[in-house]
C-alpha cells in the first residue's frame, strides 16, 4: 500500500511540474474551463437563491388566497363575499386586499401598489421600496404626485422607506392607505382586489379550499403551496432552459478540450516517448494524464465556482438575472442569502467535469499508447 501511495505522489509531482512547463497551453484551457464552471454555477446559484427568496417571502403569507373569476378572468371581489368566507369551518380570519400596478412612464417601470391596513397610514401617506426611492430620488417627507383616474394629480407624501435588505419583492413596492388607493384608482365601492384567509390548521388548507369553491361559485381559491410549487416549477424550467442553451458552449468547450488533449506538442510527445522508453508503463502514463486532468478540473472548478459565488452573492453584475427573474422591471439592490446546495454541486460536476473527461479520454489514451521504442527509432 505505501508503494502505491508513493507512486501516486510521484505521478502528481511529475504532473505538476509538467503542467508548469507547458504553462501557456494549459493556462488557456484552464481559463476557458473556469469560465464554463462560472457560467453554469452562476445560473445554479442565482436560481437557487431566487427560489429560496421566494419561499421565505411566501412563508408569512396566508395559506389561502381567494380571487373572483368572471368569464375566466380575474375580477374585483365583492365585499359581500367576505362574510360567507368567514363562516367556513376552519377559517380563523379573512381580509379583503386592495392592490394593483402603476406604470410610471418617467422611469419606464411598474410599481406594485398595495393597501396596508396594518401600517396605520394617513390618507396621503405612502411607504416605498428602496429601489423605487432610489430611482425617483425620493427621501422621507418628499411628495410624489401620481395622476388619478380623473386625470387630477394626487400628491402623496413619503412617510418611510422599506428596508432594502429585507426582500426581493419589496423593492418596487408602494404601500398606501385605503383612502389613498380608492382616490387614485376609483374602484367600485365595496369591492376588493382579492381576499386572503388564515386557516387554523395548515393541513386543512386543501379542504377549506374545496369548501370555498363549493360555497362561492365563480371563486378561485389558491393555496400558498400551489404558488410555491409554481414558483419552483418556473425557476426550475428557466434554469433547465438556460442549461440547454449553455449546451452549445459546453460542446464548444468539449471540442477545445479534445483538441488540446489530442494536439500534443512535439515536446510533449517526446517526453512521453522518453518516459515509456525508460520504464514507464502505458498505465503509468494514463494515470499521469488523468491526474493532469483532475488537477486542471479541480482548479477550474474551484476558481469558477468561487467566482460565481462571489458574483451572485456579493458582486454587482447580474449575469442571467433577466432570464431567471422574469418580467419585473425594477431591480432591487438586494443581497441574496449565500447558500451551497449539494445537489447543485453534483449537477455542476456532471455538466462540467464529466464532459471534460469524456472529451479527453480517447486523446489521452492515444498519447499514452505511443510506442516505447519510438525514441530509439526516431
Amino acid at each position, binding site marked *: 500500500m505505501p508503494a502505491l501511495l508513493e507512486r501516486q505522489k510521484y505521478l502528481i509531482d511529475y504532473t505538476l*511540474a509538467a503542467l508548469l512547463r507547458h504553462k501557456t497551453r494549459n493556462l488557456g484551457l484552464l481559463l476557458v474551463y473556469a469560465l464554463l464552471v462560472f457560467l453554469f454555477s452562476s445560473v445554479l446559484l442565482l436560481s437557487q437563491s431566487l427560489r429560496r427568496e421566494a419561499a421565505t417571502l411566501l412563508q408569512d403569507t396566508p395559506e389561502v388566497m381567494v380571487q373572483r373569476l368572471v368569464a375566466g378572468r380575474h375580477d374585483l371581489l365583492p365585499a359581500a363575499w367576505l362574510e360567507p368566507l368567514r363562516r367556513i369551518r376552519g377559517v380563523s380570519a379573512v381580509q379583503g386586499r386592495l392592490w394593483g400596478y402603476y406604470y410610471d412612464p418617467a422611469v419606464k417601470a411598474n410599481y406594485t401598489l398595495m393597501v396596508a391596513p396594518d401600517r396605520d397610514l394617513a390618507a396621503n401617506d405612502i411607504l416605498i421600496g428602496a429601489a423605487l426611492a432610489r430611482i425617483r430620488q425620493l427621501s422621507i417627507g418628499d411628495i410624489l404626485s401620481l395622476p388619478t383616474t380623473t386625470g387630477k394629480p394626487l400628491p402623496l407624501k413619503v412617510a418611510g422607506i422599506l428596508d432594502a435588505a429585507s426582500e426581493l419583492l419589496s423593492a418596487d413596492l408602494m404601500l398606501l392607505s385605503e383612502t389613498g388607493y380608492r382616490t387614485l384608482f376609483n374602484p367600485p365601492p365595496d369591492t376588493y382586489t382579492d381576499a386572503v384567509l388564515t386557516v387554523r390548521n395548515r393541513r386543512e388548507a386543501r379542504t377549506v379550499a374545496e369548501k370555498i369553491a363549493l360555497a362561492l361559485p365563480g371563486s378561485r381559491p389558491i393555496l400558498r403551496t400551489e404558488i410555491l410549487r409554481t414558483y419552483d416549477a418556473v425557476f426550475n424550467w428557466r434554469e433547465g432552459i438556460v442549461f440547454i442553451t449553455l449546451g452549445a458552449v459546453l460542446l464548444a468547450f468539449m471540442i477545445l478540450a479534445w483538441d488540446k488533449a489530442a494536439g500534443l506538442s512535439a515536446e510533449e510527445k517526446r517526453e512521453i516517448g*522518453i518516459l515509456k522508453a525508460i520504464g514507464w508503463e502505458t498505465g*503509468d502514463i494514463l494515470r499521469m494524464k488523468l491526474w493532469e486532468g483532475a488537477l486542471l478540473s479541480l482548479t477550474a472548478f474551484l476558481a469558477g465556482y468561487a467566482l460565481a459565488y462571489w458574483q451572485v452573492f456579493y458582486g454587482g453584475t447580474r449575469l442571467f438575472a433577466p432570464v431567471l427573474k422574469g418580467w419585473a422591471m425594477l431591480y432591487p439592490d438586494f443581497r441574496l442569502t449565500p447558500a451551497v446546495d449539494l445537489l447543485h454541486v453534483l449537477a455542476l460536476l456532471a455538466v462540467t467535469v464529466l464532459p471534460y473527461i469524456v472529451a479527453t479520454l480517447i486523446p489521452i489514451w492515444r498519447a499514452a499508447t505511443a510506442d516505447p521504442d519510438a525514441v530509439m527509432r526516431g
Partner: protein
Amino acid sequence: MIELTEVSKVFNQGRPNECRALRGISLRLECGGITVFKGPSGSGKTTLLTLVGCLARPTAGRITLDGQLLSNLPERFLTEVRRHTFGFVFQQFNLIRGLTVLENVMLPAYPLGRPHHQLRAAAQTLLDRFGIGGKAGSRIEWLSGGEAQRTALARALINDPAMVIADEPTANLDSALSREVLALLGELALQGRTVLISSHDPLVFAADHVKRLIELRDGQMVGDGSC
C-alpha cells in the same frame, strides 16, 4: 542469458510500405562484457536492441531471458521485465528539459514507488560516482554534452539493471568525450553488468572490454566475432 530464435520484425504489416527490419535472427547473448552491434543505418541493429531490451515485441520468433519466454508477453509485463533488467542510454541523451539533473535520474524509478528519500539518495550517489554530483540541482538545459551523457548513464542505472543498452552512445560526442563514455561503459562491464551497444563508430569497436562484435546488414546477421 538472452536467446533469440528465428526472430523477425515487420513494420506496417500488410501495407504497401511494409518494411522487414529483421529477418529470422537467431542469437545467444551471454551475460557480462560488452557486445557491440555494428552495421550501417537501416541494418536493423537498433530494432534488434529494442527487441532484446523489451521495448517492442517481435512479429515472429522467440526471445527468452534466462529461460523465461518474453516474446509473447503483453506490453504491461514487458515493461515490468524491462525496468528491472535493462537500463537505456540513447543517442540523443533524451533527457527531459525543465527538470533538474537529479529529477531526470530519478524518473525511471517513479512507477516503482520507492520511498522518496531513499530514491533521492540513490540518485545522488550515482551522480557523485560519475563526477557530476555538484550539478544535481541544475537544469538539463545548462549541461555540456559530456555531462548530459553522464546524466543519461546515471539514469540508466537508477533501477540497478543487470544489462545496459546503449544506442549509438558516441554519435553526438567528440573523440575525447567518446573515449570517456566508453571507459565508463567498460567500468560497468567490469562490475559484471552486460553492456549492449549499437554503433557504427570505429572508436567503439576498439574499446576495452568489447568481447563480441556482431555485424548486421539488411536485417540479417552477416558477421559474429569475438575480440
